[in-house]
């Protein structure tokens, strides 16, 4: 049988768990088969998806285990095949599961009206339309065709953007494309600070 490093780590970690519980056999129980069964049950129906950690730029591999029935991530672990981290993760990377399953995540569009002291829940359709209207109004009002020296600059001086190093490359690229097409020049993000 050809074992990958991940298979090996799984087996050896199951064996270690069994050994750690070895003391229980003095009480007349052999926990090892139960322990191994429990390990299998936890992820046996799960689909493994490789991803890259969202924190620092070391770029460690993480495997997400997704339950086939619920479609939810039920477990995350270091990617043992990844040449940089070899399965290891720091405290933050090891807690990736708590991003996937976190009841504090915001799950609805929120809106705060001028001078209001509260959030209101809104639909995406409403929000996108309202934001687009404001973008257009701000842009049309602040657009500078020629600067003080009379040079053509064609820029939108009234809107600024920050973010984000948390976006994927493809999102970064289309984000800069849409901002520059709108004429924004105040475009900044985490890399500057």
């Amino acid at each position, binding site marked *: 049988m050809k074992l990958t490093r991940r298979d090996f780590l799984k087996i050896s970690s199951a064996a270690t768990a069994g050994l750690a519980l070895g003391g229980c056999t003095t009480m007349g129980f052999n926990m090892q088969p139960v322990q191994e069964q429990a390990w299998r049950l936890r992820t046996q129906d799960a689909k493994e998806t490789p991803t890259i950690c969202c924190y620092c730029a070391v770029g460690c591999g993480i495997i997400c285990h997704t339950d086939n029935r619920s479609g939810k991530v039920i477990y995350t672990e270091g990617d043992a095949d990844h040449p940089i981290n070899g399965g290891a993760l720091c405290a933050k990377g090891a807690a990736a599961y708590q991003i996937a399953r*976190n009841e504090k*995540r915001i799950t609805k569009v929120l809106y705060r009206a001028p001078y209001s002291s509260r959030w209101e829940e809104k639909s995406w359709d409403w929000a996108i339309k309202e934001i687009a209207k404001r973008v257009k109004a701000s842009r049309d009002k602040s657009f500078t065709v020629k600067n003080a020296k009379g040079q053509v600059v064609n820029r939108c001086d009234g809107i*600024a953007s920050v973010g*984000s190093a948390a976006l994927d490359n493809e999102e970064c690229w289309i*984000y800069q494309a849409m901002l520059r097409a709108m004429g924004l020049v105040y475009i900044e993000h985490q*890399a500057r600070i």
Partner: protein
Amino acid sequence: MTNHWIDIKNSDCILIMGSNAAENHPISFRWVTEAQKNGATLISVDPRFTRTSSKADFYTALRSGTDIAFLGGMINYILSNNKYFKEYVARYTNACFIVGKKYGFHDGLFSGFDPKTRKYDKSYWAYELDENGVPKKDYTLKHPRTVFQLLKKHFSRYTLDKVSAVTGTPKEDLVKVYELYSATGKPDKAGTIMYAMGWTQHTVGVQNIRTMAIIQLLLGNMGVAGGGVNALRGESNVQGSTDHCLLFHIWPGYLPTPTASAATLADYNKKYTPVSHDPLSANWWQNRPKYVVSFLKAMFGDAADAGNDFGYGWMPKLDDGKAYSWLDLFDAMYRGEFSGFFAWGQNPACSGANAAKTREALTRLDWMVNVNLFDNETASFWKGPGMDPGKVKTEVFFLPCAAFMEKEGSVTNSGRWAQWRYKAQDPPGEAKPDGDIMVELFNEIRSLYAKEGGVFPDPILNLKWDYTTDGKFDAHKVARTINGEFTRDVTIKDKTYKKGQLVPSFAFLQADGSTTSGNWLYCQSYNESGNNMARRDTTDASGIGLYSNWAWCWPVNRRILYNRASVDLMGRPWNPKKPVIAFAGEVRDGKYVTNKWVGDVPDGGWYPMMNPDGTLRTDTKYPFIMKPHGFGGIFGPGRNDGPFPEHYEPIECPVEKNLFSSQFTNPVAAVYGTEKDVYKTCDPRYPFVGTTYRVTEHWQTGVLTRWQPWLLETEPQLFVEMSEELARLRGIKNGEKVIVESPRGAVEAVAMVTKRFRPFLVQGQEIHQVGLPWHYGWVWPPDGGDSANLLSPSAGDPNTRIPETKAFMVNVRKKGV
């Protein structure tokens, strides 16, 4: 990073300074430890004894903001004790260039300074050119105006006595670090530097890194395995977001954003394309016009053609000489210049310097859009401390987005590896991937302009915007655009490429509109051989850990930059045990007759500089191909604050004079003038040096990590770390609540009294330093404390304009006293 994470294992000496890799890039330590197992020496230099320091073979401290003095002393040591790598310095660096007679340096100022505008005229620092316009060189390095001799003279002032008096580092510790690190000046030894924001967040940030780059060039550590200048970047895709230029001053692929004086594409190409008259200089940026046209074609598709300057006129232009950086942006917002603002995947109310100014600036907007996973101090600024929601007009739209495992796409790590990641679950509730939000929002904006018209609608209507499949954002389609394709059938070197075919790599890009490429640096990432970023081949044929078939790295999958400097003039590795590349062409009659390199992708595949019989070749190029003249830059005449680094005190500091000159602070540092921009130096009310740092369990402003119970339990609230001596001085006990205040704001924190901070002896005076993590904010958790950036000043480096958040002045007192 010029090198990459795994390559750290190849090093003989690792200097960790300006970063705390063990706590902030923990898995990097897997490779630091590997190097130590192989006999490498680890040096940690930090104002505070960190977990990195605890693993070091040698540790010493310096006062925040004195790195140039510390490293300048190392340059002096290397030159005075002949520790530099002579052949490398003479042949591969600009040490041999002769500088013009107008260059000068006197009492802290370089020649060309205009005190009225607080700017340098850089023409004073130009090289002396020969009749062909090529810089004159003296390979013996003896001419008094060679860069080498000027460097020697400049840093001869950095004596041990003076450096020690400024940094607070004992002289014997300085000598120890200098000895250990300069031992890597031997051809077969490599030293590396791991730095991060501890170096960049200063008003001399760029020159901190320049000083180390000079050391690396003097010791021949650039291009080799286990060497390089390695920035440990702090966000999973901050390398990619920089490459794709979500920054005011550059377009994707580091193409300068045009200013108003470059009215046409021809003007742009003339202004920004460097020229070299030396036939041996590759001057790679001479290709810039190809990359610019390919970028514009990617932006505007078929609407961009030669007849309309490829849409160049549709792109916004900056005013010449004006900065639009982070500090400038919030300064403009504070002064009411914007009506709208996007904070997309970022929490500026906590993350930038002088957070109180930022928070106040947000009240001056008409509307703001914040995209994030969790509530945060930016989204909810209107109900934050000191705010009365009834008086805040700003409308806020909070758009909930997907987490990293809820979408597909690539991220680029610090070692320039672009790695593809996949979707493991749907986002919760109505949260959406950022890509979908962008597509839907821009569709709506575009349809408004199509329907109603408006000011200058052309770029909006003509932007290529076909990035969906079945109505959903498709990262593959964008990845193909970033890579680029042929827009018509093209024959290059006897091979025909069909219209629509993906461009193999950037060497094929053209300036005539026949190719597109959203970012030339990523050309090859997604081509006809597939999505190279998704590769998962774990074999390593190199023997030095390049893993060249795992994911993909820019440029052209070259894993170690400047690698042609890792070989001698004949193409033989300086270190035969750890070759990055080696020339393997055939030899006939003492001459190379076929061209073949083995190992990493060479930095340009030309023949070596010299034949085995010692004759120089003319069909070769100098190794530093991105530099106009082809040589590593010991002299840096393009910087805004001088061609050599010079020690200046931080904008806020505890000393009354700069021992190196009467120029107290960086004469061209960025400072601001609103009532929120208060700077106090040597003010008895703020007697202690303050700095910020991070802990392993939290990330940046804590916007993701403060919401995770496991992480929050381990690091629940803001603390301020201080020495036992300072605690005694202020009557503070470990665990007590204290107030930390600066001229700009105050935070409440738990006192953490440790032996990790020690007082410094600076200019004969005892100086205390304290440090705070900047992960906290008032939104969550309750009583967790607020942002340490309420304390830091809005002052910035004159080149990058990165704020000086690593050295400022504070007071610490017991709460209620």
